[in-house]
């Protein structure tokens, strides 16, 4: 749940997400925002932070990737403790963007990171986790 400025209501639910959206996420197979099995980026890459942006070197493919400020913000939240919905909420808070815009941005970036095999763990759509009811 968010206010007119697009800020997430901190009281709306666990970790700042509203219950209906969280339930929707559960149905889609994403982990609970507070569950420690959320999205996680690979740790075996070399990262250089430069003024809030980042360069990532993947030794497995010898590819280098650039993350702009918001992409790097999202990357940092892919720490195994957050899911897509929670990251979108955090993006809303930090950059004052509309929830839909944040969700689209996060979703797009996660797809891009996945395609580049930079995520170590991303719960598959349709999958369930302990404690979640499909």
């Amino acid at each position: 749940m968010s206010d007119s400025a697009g800020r997430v209501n901190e009281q709306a639910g666990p970790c700042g997400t509203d219950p209906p959206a969280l339930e929707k996420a559960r149905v889609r197979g994403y982990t609970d925002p507070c569950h420690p099995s959320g999205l996680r980026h690979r740790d075996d890459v070399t990262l250089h932070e430069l003024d809030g942006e980042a360069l990532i070197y993947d030794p497995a493919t010898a590819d280098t990737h650039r993350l702009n400020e918001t992409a790097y913000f999202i990357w940092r939240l892919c720490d195994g403790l957050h899911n897509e919905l929670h990251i979108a909420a955090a993006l809303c808070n930090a950059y004052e963007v509309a929830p839909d815009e944040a969700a689209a941005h996060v979703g797009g970036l996660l797809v891009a990171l996945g395609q580049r095999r930079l995520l170590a763990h991303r719960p598959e759509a349709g999958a369930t986790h302990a404690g979640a009811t499909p």
Partner: protein
Amino acid sequence: MTLGDTRYTRCFRIGVVPVRIDSTDRGVIEQYTSLYRSRLVDDAGERAVRVSIRRPPRPLWHRRRYDVIVGERVQFEPARRAEVLPYVEWAINWEVPRALPEYLQLHASSMQVDGAGVIFPGESGSGKSTLTAGLLARGWKYLCDEFALIHAETLELHPFPRAICIKKPSLPIVARLGLSAHRNQHHIKGGKGLVGFIDPLALGPDGVGEACPIRFVIFPKYVAGAMPTLEAISRAEAAFDLHRVCFNLFSCRAVGLDVIAGMIRGAACYRLVAGALRATCDLVERVVRGAA
């Protein structure tokens, strides 16, 4: 020994790059020596870049008349004398990362002004060399028109003051600045066509700079008739683009991206649309010297 076996050898130190050239063709050796006479040394040392130019006994109808050899391998086979010097330069460039692995080699011209290193990364045709000549004529110190050699440990920019290679259409422009092609000779350089080489010391003995920290990274793009503009970009964007113009990202003694990321933290980064040389140099000077 017959006359045909005579081998001429010359050693040079071009900035931090030691070079040893030998040839059975005296004319070729003299051509190179005349361009780099002030860099002649008695011995280039064990780590020298070694290039041999041979003129093998081939029938007259054979198209390839010269062999440019690096190590034991024939790297280039120029057909005419006018093609030899550019290919020798090319062969040296290719060998620098192997001979001097402590340097990260970027495709960028490099200059020094007021003690600050400025690099202009870009592909061929981006206007690096002409811009370099223009700034040299304004008193900037020359480091190289084709490469930025960055020491992997100190992250400093080092000189490799090879002759400035200018395409024939741009020669009249730099000639107006007092920089003429060496001996007014033209050479043939692959896809670039006719080029002339300019001695960076032509304007004075102080024309070449020294090792210095990199303070500016400016990506030029020449657009004929354009109004010159400079646009600030983020260091991450610049570093990403720099890694794409690095020749030895993986063969440098250090991890190439580490070097780039470390170096760029102290630099301001821009994209430059380059137009007329004078206006472009005015703009670059204003920003670089203003910031300094």
